[in-house]
């Protein structure tokens, strides 16, 4: 298991289309929702709303799902140049809070060609420390050949 937050992936090997065997499961990783990560996220998307709270806890921004959903399969790799995000689903099952450490894991759901372009769909799940499913992210990307 690895910790993905803050990891720079540019020196990692490329994740090639041939590597995406349907059913392949990637190593689980932890994803820490730190105050710094949330502040950086909110600054990046110009989100100036007051943070949403529930009791004494602060909800993690829903858009963070896009980050762990991608890092789950790129924790030890990088996308080859020219890869393009084609589609995405994001499901919210249980809230995540600032301070939580999520357990994230990705699986290759499908690999196919359309109009002679290679596509792959990767599904990632995140559970909180109580074992509750927080979210599911499905990324479909056009992979460079």
């Amino acid at each position: 298991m690895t910790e993905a937050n803050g990891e720079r992936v540019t020196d990692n090997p490329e994740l090639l289309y041939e590597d995406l065997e349907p059913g392949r499961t990637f190593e689980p990783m932890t994803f820490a929702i730190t105050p710094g990560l949330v502040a950086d996220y909110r600054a990046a998307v110009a989100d100036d709303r007051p943070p949403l709270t529930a009791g004494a806890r602060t909800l993690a921004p829903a858009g963070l799902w896009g980050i762990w959903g991608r890092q789950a399969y790129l924790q030890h790799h990088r996308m080859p140049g020219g890869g393009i995000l084609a589609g995405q689903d994001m499901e919210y099952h249980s809230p995540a809070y600032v301070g939580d450490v999520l357990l994230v894991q990705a699986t290759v759901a499908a690999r196919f060609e359309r109009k002679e372009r290679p596509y792959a769909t990767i599904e990632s799940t995140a559970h909180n420390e109580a074992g509750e499913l927080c979210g599911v992210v499905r990324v479909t990307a056009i992979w460079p050949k």
Partner: protein
Amino acid sequence: MRRRPSHGNLAQVRETPMSTIEVGAQIPAVEKSISQEMINAWADVSGDTNPLHVDVEYAKTSRFGGTIAHGHISLGFLCEAMVRWLGPAWHSRGALRGVKFVAPIRPGYIVRTQGSVVDVVDDDGDRVAHCDISVIDAGTGETCVVGAATYRLADLHEAP
């Protein structure tokens, strides 16, 4: 009978009244200015340093002719719009589905989310609202991102 986990006192936080969620209801828009600085900031926070997004000179030679914003930035805007509309219950009852990136979003654009409720149905014990959602270039009206959102209004199996 399915039961969902309890989420503390989320219900005490602001939510859109369920009675206002009906076919035709409009999702309040979120509008944002896109800059290269925003794109670079997203690259830093996400680790997605694809040169199409962050290398201006490289991107000029690409089929896009310049840098483009990460698709995940638009997803963040759509999430913000849904949470502004529905409150924290989105975090346990919402989903974005089939989101497609149909046109590039470039630095200098002002983009706007838009959406509306297109159906409310009973689905396996849930009352579910289906919405069309999109992100448009506010300057030209061009659609850049399209998709759907679903929101479970209530579990009909749960006791009142």
